[in-house]
């Protein structure tokens, strides 16, 4: 079980959280303008890197706030936030 670092509450047990998938996928400003392919890309396609990955977490059984974190998918270790830009690229 991971120890997830909530920016508001500090380190808490993973069972208090819900995983929110890849971070930084913004809702399109005009979905109608997107082709089926572009919309499907937004809807379904996510990165699956080995290594640093910016992802969303929700402290559902705590402060109930969403936040982004960077985690190494191979070691499960949470990384300092400055990995975030690298992970997004």
């Amino acid at each position, binding site marked *: 079980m991971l120890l997830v670092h909530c920016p508001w509450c500090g380190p808490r047990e993973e069972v208090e959280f819900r995983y929110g998938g890849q971070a930084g996928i913004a809702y399109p400003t005009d979905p109608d303008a997107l082709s089926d392919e572009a919309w499907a890309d937004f*809807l379904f396609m996510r990165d699956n890197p080995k290594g640093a990955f910016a992802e969303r977490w929700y402290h559902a059984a705590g402060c109930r706030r969403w936040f982004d974190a960077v985690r190494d998918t191979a070691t499960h270790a949470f990384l300092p936030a400055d990995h975030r830009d690298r992970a997004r690229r």
Partner: protein
Amino acid sequence: MTPGRLAHGGAWIDRSKPVLFTFDGTELEGFQGDTLASALLANGVVGGFRSPILGRPRGIHAAGVEEPNGYVEISAPWFDAIAAATTVPLVDGLVARSRAGVGRLPEDPGSVATPRVAHRFVHVEVLVVGGGASGRAAARAASQEGDRVLLVDEHPVLDAPATGSDMTILANATALGVYDDGYAVVLERTVDIVVWHVRAGRVVLATGAIERPIALAGNDLPGVMLAGAAQTYVERYGVRPGERAAVFATNDPGFGVADVLRQAGVDVVRTVDARSGELVIEALGAERLERILVRTTDGREEAFDVDLLAVSGGWNPNLGLWRSIGGGLRYDDERAAFVPDGGPPWLSVEGRAAGDVPAGTPLWFVEHGDDAAKFVDLQRDQTVADIAEAVGGGLRSVEHVKRATYIGTAVDQGRTSGVLAAETVSRLLGEAAGAQGPSNARPPYAPASYLSLAGPTRGDLLDPIRTTPMHPWHVAHGAAFENVGQWKRPWFFPRDAEPMHRAVERECLAVRNGVGAMDASTLGKIEVVGADAPAFLDRMYTNRMSNLAVGSIRYGLMLGLDGMVLDDGVAMRLAEDRYLVTTTTGGAATVLDRFEEWLQTEWPDLRVYCTSVTEQWAVVAINGPRAREVVSATGTDVDVAREAFPFMTFRDGHVAGVPARLARVSFSGELAYELHVPAWHGLEVWEAVMAAGEPFGIEPYGTEAMHVLRAEKGYVIVGQDTDGSVTPHDLGMDWIVNLSKGDFIGRRSLRRSDLVRTDRKQLVGLLPDDARALLPEGAQLVVEDTGRIPMPLAGHVTSSYQSAALGRAFALAMLAGGHEMHGTTVFAPLPEGTLACTVTSPVPYDPDGERRDG
């Protein structure tokens, strides 16, 4: 004195405290501090076990958790389906039976004594697993740094004391698993069980090393024992494991055991040093070891009569926990062992587990003799011949060999066989030593019962039970309950010994012809408040909520981003900036989370606050042609007249003398009122309604009648008629999708090519040609019954009931292209015969909605 017990010695036993126990029906005596295994050896029980597959005689082989042979079922003073005799502490009145490696559940689980189980949660800076010399040193060092330390050891006592400030020592405690970020689960076992959930800043594994056997012909006979185990029985338990012994080893400590045995009065007749080329090539005996054959360096064969062969093939660092959390391994040639190499930063390994084991010349199996008698995995009865067969069949990886032979998959997790199997594979393939790593290890490290892992979270404590304020009334009136999420909801109210279908029929007829009342308090309720609440709800629901008048109610459908129906409910506009939205009973938490997610992550600019008020309101739903009369009779200051209080509006006022919100919504199609009252008034208002309704023949009804009534009207239940792959169009609910109001969640997906296919499964009604034939929910439908399986499937039944109002059975179904198939016949092929059904509209009852206003 029992025959195997020495006159003196035994550091762990207390000779002043004899203990009586029973093994396979015979009463025996041991001492406090014994394990079941040491006590058996003390009583001269050398064999006593059988191998699980071949049924060969077996005896105690080891002295710890690595034991492959000596498994027992314990029936007193507690029950355990399977445990290694080497790890069972001897207690007075222990009753054990030998088990051939496979546990068995009691026929009547209620008849066995189960240990009490508690779960504890602790935080420490350092967790040390293993209380040997290096574990104690690590614990001491950490304690001196001021860290909180937890030291756990699977044995009942430590070899030497360990003390320090803020140090907790758990004996009889096995770390079952070490997980991410210093989380560990430790099972502490005396008579009762404590499962410790430990979160540690760092974890030190001082788990020692496990002695290796040598695969030689006949090595599974009782009397063949790991050398270190023989030493343990002498030194810790004062037990002599044999009378005449030989020692066969590849390393100096192995031969040290010969001295220990001699001092204990054992006649050591031969030591065989594999390093010089001498070999024990066969162990012989019928029910136990009687003789060994030794092949000398010059090729002669000598026979020795012995009843104990102590074997040491070297030592494997005990790295099961290390590997289960992703620690790497490296083969160390000098030590002929896999040692730790690379792992998480918070995890370290100390002592013998870290590779501090004696150097030696590896000897995995003896070339001479019958390969089919050289056992690699004693618990799976697998030999060198079995591995050779797997390799000969083309397998090249130990992981594949493991799956072909099951080596390492038994209760002992292959602690003595894993590395031996890997090296045997390497040898047979002509690879270098260490070319194959041992197969992977997974938690739990040692057998743990479900009972212990479940702890107190079983029975009524398995999951929180939620009940409504009216629950005591339901119980007192004999309701049968069903679980809806965590809620207990009345399912139906049987009268006398009435069967379910009679009760449901009676409850449905009451609503259709008279009046019924249902406890609807479990409906999810969320208050959505703020200046931007109208705009927010327009984005969350498929229809428009911003133009809903204050005092009015509107049904709403919520989609996923993928356009699939996610939840439904109604929205009541309480004020310009305030809505109360309801959700399905099971969907309340999901919907609230979803609101929060969008508000926090995409639209932080919206001024909206969401509050769950599910448990703040009790709801009585009064349905039926006489509902208005019942509400009036209950006493209200709200004008409930047909014209004054139209459908899909609500009024604030009083009912039965308490503040109430009255709402004209109906899930049955009949005239209906919902009374929303503060939860603490729920029971009294319910009782008032039942009393006021008595002259009108009011019946309480449960969820089953509610399901029938709503299905007769074609109202879907999200999660029953839908399964996450159903769009509003599939349900025939285009009327609720407002494509012109602007964007809403799921809108863009509704145009995706797959969602506009005309052959998607669509909601229809089904009338079985045999009016009494009830289709099973989930039954598959075909357009043409070819009589041969497989047939092209066209859909499936989602809801199916006997309808008193229709006087026949009917069903709702999802049917490919169903909207265009009304009037046609489809078939449900069932084991007991095929049912033909006519496809209809999904609203078989009151299709024009003439009954809702009474």
